[in-house]
């Protein structure tokens, strides 16, 4: 645990700041820290998320989709999600419950989202049907 985090937790323990303020400060500290500062692995870390769809439908003919999304873009988007107003999250929660998906979006923390994007490095998804092929992987 670094010194800044320790100080924030200390202030929280002493009641100088609220839990919400502490969370914001911790998020700010994480933002300042370089995300790629993790110990170097043997292989190079993937930079892009790739989605390839190859479908052949009788109605619309052959369809090809090839999308490359930088993982940095995903991380930046996830960080921006922190700024979604709580009232918007509440509304989204209500709509999700209506659709039968009881997920509480307010419980999802920025750290968890970061971990999710980091875990994408090892993701490979292959769907192979007779007329459709979908491949999602990191490169």
């Amino acid at each position, binding site marked *: 645990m670094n010194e800044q985090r320790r100080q924030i937790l200390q202030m929280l323990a002493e009641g100088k700041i609220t839990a919400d303020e502490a969370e914001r400060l911790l998020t700010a500290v994480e933002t300042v820290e370089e995300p790629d500062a993790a110990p170097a692995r043997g292989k190079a870390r993937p930079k892009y998320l790739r989605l390839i769809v190859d479908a052949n439908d009788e109605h619309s003919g052959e369809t*090809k*989709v090839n999308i*490359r999304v930088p993982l940095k873009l995903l991380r930046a988007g996830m960080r921006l999600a922190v700024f979604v107003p709580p009232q918007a999250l509440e509304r989204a929660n209500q709509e999700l419950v209506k659709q039968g998906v009881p997920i509480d979006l307010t419980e999802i923390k920025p750290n968890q989202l970061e971990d999710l994007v980091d875990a994408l490095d090892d993701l490979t998804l292959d769907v192979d049907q007779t007329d459709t092929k979908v491949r999602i992987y990191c490169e």
Partner: protein
Amino acid sequence: MMPQLVTARWRRRDGRRRRLFLPVVPIVLLLSPLLVFTVIGGIVACLMYGLPPLRTLAGVGRLFGALPGARFEFEQGRTAVFVSVR
């Protein structure tokens, strides 16, 4: 790094191809007066919703800076679209 060039290519149903190169920096400079109003509008919206304007602006900037390398390619029948950000 800020995006430098956006390339868009598309092929219409009749088989005609079109290409469009958008140099981002000159376009941003050209639209800078409008951008000032956009930023002011964004700050007002942030204050209305109780968000920290500077951090939100930094987040949007980071999102914009992470765009290079993004690529989108779609092809169906005789129609095709390709967009790339460098």
